[in-house]
């Protein structure tokens, strides 16, 4: 499905990462590979440091920290908030919606719309589209998009396909209507026939968590995890990112008559360096315009990856300049999407620790 929104302004972005930092080299013994092989993977995939939450910290704690900072420093006026859109696969509870919990903690008014979207690596694109749809109906005020995931709490520390790449983060994006606003073009696709390729099998109502589901099993390839843990069909997902995703981006560029040379940055979801370099090569993109440094610094934080990529790489520049940015998210669902807009100069762009 294609979308076009007019007169929308991304006013600011804040990313929040946990203070707790773990290093790949300290975890090598968990993965059952030789040290040489781990070093080689470290270089290829970009394994380095990751930020993950400690104990029972939630995604909502990360974004609440950022929201309180914005309100305290006068960058966000609570009275202007018309809606909270919380995108996550790791809510505080099955019920109530985490957006309502945040609404209560912030002390927002009763006329503020709150809802949660269950989405992962495409979640920033989903969230921006949803925010723009709300803004089309509510002409004044701001929509606050919140992306937060703490998937490290559902990843088996022995699973070498998942654990070395997973990071936790939150992100806040404030969007409004404005006469100086820009067009936002987007395209989304879904293929639910491959929904089992990225899944946490147990813990919901289909397969409740029990003693058996919590048991860590040794798989035929020597990898280990339980049914309560996050599973990824690594080979299948890699192929998906090298076939469906570039084909979709090419169609997006063609349908919108988009001049790829005029794009300043390709802020893509951050699964790992190897995959992003192959994707950039396949699309003949200038590597300098495709940051691929988030996994090595923070880990892959699911739907918060695109705003974190922006905050890490261009937070000074985007305060002073307008940047034409193409975003792409791809993952759980399977879902994938592209978005193009001009962003900046922003009122704020920050990277915080909690």
């Amino acid at each position, binding site marked *: 499905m294609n979308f076009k929104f007019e007169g929308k302004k991304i006013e600011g972005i804040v990313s929040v990462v946990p203070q707790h930092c773990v290093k790949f080299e300290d975890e090598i013994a968990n993965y059952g590979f030789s040290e040489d092989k781990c070093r080689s993977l470290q270089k290829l995939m970009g394994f380095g440091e990751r930020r993950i939450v400690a104990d029972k910290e939630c995604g909502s704690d990360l974004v609440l920290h950022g929201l309180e900072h914005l309100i305290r420093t006068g960058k966000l006026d609570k009275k202007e908030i018309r809606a909270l859109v919380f995108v996550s696969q790791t809510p505080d509870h099955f019920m109530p919606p985490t957006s309502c919990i945040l609404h209560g903690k912030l002390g927002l008014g009763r006329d503020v719309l709150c809802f949660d979207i269950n989405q992962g690596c495409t979640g920033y694109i989903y969230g921006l589209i949803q925010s723009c749809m709300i803004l089309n109906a509510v002409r004044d005020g701001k929509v606050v998009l919140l992306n937060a995931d703490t998937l490290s709490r559902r990843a088996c520390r022995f699973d070498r*396909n998942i654990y070395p790449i997973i990071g936790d983060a939150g992100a806040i994006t404030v969007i409004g209507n404005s006469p100086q606003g820009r067009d936002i073009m987007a395209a989304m696709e879904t293929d639910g026939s491959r929904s089992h390729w990225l899944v946490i099998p147990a813990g919901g109502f289909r397969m409740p968590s029990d003693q058996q589901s919590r048991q860590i099993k040794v798989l035929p390839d020597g990898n280990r995890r339980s049914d309560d843990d996050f599973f990824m069909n690594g*080979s299948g997902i*890699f192929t998906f990112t090298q076939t469906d995703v570039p084909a979709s981006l090419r169609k997006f560029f063609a349908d919108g008559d988009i001049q790829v040379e005029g794009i300043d940055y390709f802020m893509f979801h951050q699964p790992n360096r190897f*995959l992003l370099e192959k994707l950039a090569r396949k699309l003949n993109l200038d590597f300098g315009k495709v940051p691929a440094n988030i996994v090595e610094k923070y880990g892959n934080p699911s739907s918060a990856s695109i705003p974190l990529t922006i905050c890490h790489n261009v937070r000074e520049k985007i305060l002073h300049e307008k940047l034409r940015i193409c975003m792409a998210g791809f993952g759980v669902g399977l879902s994938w999407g592209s978005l193009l807009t001009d962003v900046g100069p922003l009122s704020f762009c920050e990277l915080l620790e909690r």
Partner: protein
Amino acid sequence: MNEVISILTVIRPEVDFTRCDDFIKEGLLDSLDIVTLVAELEDRLGICIDGQDISPENFKNLETLLALLRRYTVL
């Protein structure tokens, strides 16, 4: 052929790849092994394998792997 076997043996020294029909089904190569293998092949053979070709079917056994490499170089 020998070069490919030598790389595979570095990745999984305990396996005799000449005796296996399906590296993936038999659990001998996982997705991270394939990444390591691709990087090593690219480095040693001076090729760049298209991401679309990095799929389990092309890494099933020595025959499919050599067929893939023939599309990029002369072995």
